[in-house]
């Protein structure tokens, strides 16, 4: 769909208001159905056997005893999921991750699965499966893994992106480089250079709902899958491909989703459930335990990042350089590459280079986590920028404003920016009362910026007008945080009807065309574009119907304010026809009225945020209390401001947890030590203050309402903002995330020791 690219300021009636979400009552009464809340007749319970070793050759799996246990209906191993990937390396990795083939690559890697009549029998059966492992040396640490002496996670990976191609395999799967200008020359012009290495530990998205699905494969090749996912169409394609099913015969229904944050963009248990169902000939329900979620779904990368920034004494940055090592788990990824792309994206730099290295380790496969890879890069760079401000003797906000990217700046990852919000967020922060509020003893303030790309992508939407004039909007992007409310607002806006007359639902894969998943902050951006397009198509139909009702030429019908109006005086005093009027006559004027839209929603505008944080440190225990937190972010246009604020607050809270306490802790044996919410410490209510938000609206010229994605950027600045605040409070530069109390206390002791 081609929109007028010249964005004009618009006034809105529905967009920008804060009505109650259409799925709300179901969610406050316990009626909403999530992944594990659905059952099918004759359903079995599935359970997965997982490797206790970080790295081991699977020499033999004996399932005979488990198969003989009464009540067991199917036992599967990798042989039940034959390799149909036809040389597609990415799909092969997905297959191997769903069920280990030959080698177990991390603690928690699936090696076999059973389906039985109940949970107790399934658990008993797991114990009867005998696996003979040959334990291999493992490596879980990102810095250890890049050493030449490290055990190889995969024997046949040679670092890609290096010329000439290496002759020896390595745990560095790929190298990528971004930047422009001459970095060496830039450092030559610098009066001041800051240089430091930073580390961040692996974290998990921590969605409250574990992965869950119900799979049913029929003997005629049709199949159904009910699943909590961020992208049921993508899951359909992956599952169909891995199992050799026809894509259109696999109907995938997305349940309500209890949080995803990127972690539900990948298939984990779903192909296993389908394979179990195929073998057992009955539906199979498979639900991960919390421990399985931590051990065997996809956390984000652990990182090790070196940053070097040079500036003239007036604060102008002359050169910036970063090397970023990101753990990928046992499979190649593009996590370091995204880190390299985003690292310096906030700044207007003449000479910049960033190098990413994808590092294989014996940990679970890295998955996307909200603005994947950007928070760690921002932590390193924004910490270094603060150091630089200190050395130059400039206010950190002023230094950032001086070097901020603007319209026309060549970004560090290549393209030239259109209108962007980094400058405005910085200026808003500079003026914000939070920046000037007094601080007490042991308290510190920090601020930091963050960037995320935002995506568009394939989108399909149906808008059906009922005989009473109410509207059903069927969209294919999973609603992860209130998008049904936002999209209903957009439909109401475009049709000119009240919000209450619209109900948005998420359609399954058999009733709507393909949609990319809800990732990259695209849900509301893309589906609102498609909704507007569908509404305009429906309006065209309604104009035709009005013309028929009035018996006048359609060219004489205008659409205004939710009504068809006869143009000019020649049609006398024909009263305008409402959607209701036109819908009521529909059976006689040509049948059902609908608008459809299929499009690729391109032009998602990049997004920037700047956060401010105050902390207080207990100097005797190293405990950090977050006293005050402010998020300033560009939303383009906030369709439903409550849910925009919610995204800002939620991202900040996740960032606070990451910055202070959350981390994967591995033992010497390569096993995860803290696979539960007790020792993987996500913030609780009493850990946080109110999180203030300021929404800026710098319209995205590529969206008819100016909308940008808002979901992810809010997690990018917190690590750095909090690190800067803590560093200011304790007087020591904190370079290791999370800044847990033992690390802060050790830093304070180090300072005392001089």
């Amino acid at each position: 769909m081609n929109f007028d690219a010249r964005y004009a300021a618009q006034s809105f009636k529905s967009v920008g208001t804060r009505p109650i979400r259409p799925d709300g009552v179901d969610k406050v009464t316990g009626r909403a159905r999530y992944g594990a809340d659905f059952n099918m007749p004759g359903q079995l319970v599935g359970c997965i056997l997982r490797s206790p070793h970080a790295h081991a050759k699977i020499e033999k799996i004996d399932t005979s005893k488990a198969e003989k246990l009464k009540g067991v209906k199917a036992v599967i191993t990798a042989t039940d999921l034959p390799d149909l990937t036809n040389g597609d390396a990415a799909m092969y990795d997905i297959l191997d991750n769903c069920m280990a083939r030959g080698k177990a690559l991390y603690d928690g890697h699936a090696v076999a699965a059973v389906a039985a009549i109940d949970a107790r029998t399934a658990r008993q059966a797991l114990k009867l499966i005998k696996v003979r492992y040959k334990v291999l040396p493992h490596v879980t640490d990102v810095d250890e893994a890049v050493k030449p002496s490290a055990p190889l996670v995969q024997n046949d990976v040679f670092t890609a992106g290096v010329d000439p191609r290496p002759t020896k395999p390595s745990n560095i799967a790929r190298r990528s480089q971004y930047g422009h200008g001459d970095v060496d020359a830039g450092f030559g012009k610098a009066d001041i250079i800051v240089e430091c290495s930073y580390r961040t530990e692996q974290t998990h998205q921590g969605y409250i709902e574990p992965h869950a699905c119900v799979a049913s494969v029929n003997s005629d090749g049709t199949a159904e899958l009910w699943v909590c996912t961020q992208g049921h169409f993508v899951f359909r394609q992956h599952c169909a491909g891995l199992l050799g099913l026809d894509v259109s015969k696999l109907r995938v229904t997305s349940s309500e989703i209890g949080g995803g944050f990127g972690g539900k963009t990948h298939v984990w248990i779903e192909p296993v459930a389908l394979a179990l169902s195929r073998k057992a000939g009955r539906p199979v329900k498979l639900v991960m335990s919390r421990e399985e979620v931590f051990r065997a779904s996809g956390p984000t990368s652990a990182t090790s990042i070196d940053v070097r920034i040079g500036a003239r004494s007036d604060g102008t940055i002359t050169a910036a350089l970063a090397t970023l090592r990101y753990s990928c788990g046992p499979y190649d990824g593009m996590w370091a590459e995204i880190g390299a792309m985003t690292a310096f994206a906030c700044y207007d730099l003449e000479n910049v280079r960033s190098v990413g290295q994808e590092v294989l380790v014996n940990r679970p496969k890295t998955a996307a986590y909200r603005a994947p890879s950007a928070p760690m890069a921002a932590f390193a760079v924004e910490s270094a920028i603060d150091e630089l401000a200190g050395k130059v003797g400039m206010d950190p906000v002023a230094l950032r404003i001086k070097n901020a990217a603007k319209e026309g700046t060549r970004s560090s990852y290549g393209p030239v920016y259109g209108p962007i919000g980094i400058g405005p967020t910085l200026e808003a922060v500079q003026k914000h009362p939070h920046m000037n509020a007094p601080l007490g003893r042991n308290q510190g303030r920090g601020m930091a910026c963050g960037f995320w790309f935002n995506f568009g992508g394939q989108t399909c939407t149906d808008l059906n007008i009922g005989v009473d004039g109410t509207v059903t909007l069927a969209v294919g992007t999973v609603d992860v945080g209130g998008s049904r409310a936002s999209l209903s607002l957009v439909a109401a806006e475009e049709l000119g009807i009240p919000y209450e007359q619209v109900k948005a639902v998420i359609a399954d894969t058999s009733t709507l065309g393909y949609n990319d998943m809800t990732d990259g902050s695209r849900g509301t951006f893309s589906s609102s574009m498609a909704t507007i397009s569908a509404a305009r198509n429906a309006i065209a139909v309604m104009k035709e119907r009005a013309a028929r009702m009035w018996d006048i030429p359609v060219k004489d019908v205008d659409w205004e304010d939710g009504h068809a109006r006869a143009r000019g005086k020649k049609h006398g005093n024909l009263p305008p026809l409402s959607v209701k009027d036109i819908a009521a006559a529909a059976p006689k004027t040509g049948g059902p009225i609908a608008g459809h839209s299929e499009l690729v929603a391109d032009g998602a505008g990049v997004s920037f945020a700047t956060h401010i944080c105050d902390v207080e440190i207990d100097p005797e225990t190293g405990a950090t209390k977050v006293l005050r937190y402010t998020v300033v972010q560009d939303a383009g246009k906030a369709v439903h401001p409550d849910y925009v604020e919610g995204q800002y607050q939620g991202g900040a809270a996740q960032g606070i947890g990451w910055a202070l306490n959350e981390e994967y802790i591995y033992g010497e044996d390569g096993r995860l030590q803290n696979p539960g919410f007790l020792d993987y410490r996500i913030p609780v209510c009493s850990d946080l203050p109110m999180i203030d938000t300021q929404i800026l609206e710098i319209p995205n010229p590529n969206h008819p309402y100016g909308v940008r994605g808002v979901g992810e950027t809010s997690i990018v600045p917190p690590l750095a903002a909090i690190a800067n605040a803590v560093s200011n409070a304790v007087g020591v530069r904190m370079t290791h995330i999370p800044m847990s109390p033992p690390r802060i206390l050790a830093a304070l002791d180090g300072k005392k020791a001089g």
Partner: protein
Amino acid sequence: MVAVTLWGSVAAAAGGAETIDIEAKDIRELFGKLAEQYPGLEPLVENGIAVAIDGVIYRDSWSKELPRDAEIVLLPRLAGG
């Protein structure tokens, strides 16, 4: 003729080429010619590549026209959360 800039892993796959002049009217033609001239790019083009035209990123729009003096940048296709 449009000037296409390659970055990151995309440039690496094209054997280190950073700027390529190509006669292409739209993204589809651009992809076809790229795969022809740089076989290393073919799997990337097949599985996902993004094209920034004057700073706006396109992912799946073959029919998107490439204006003569536009700045074209090829980027890897990203994952989001």
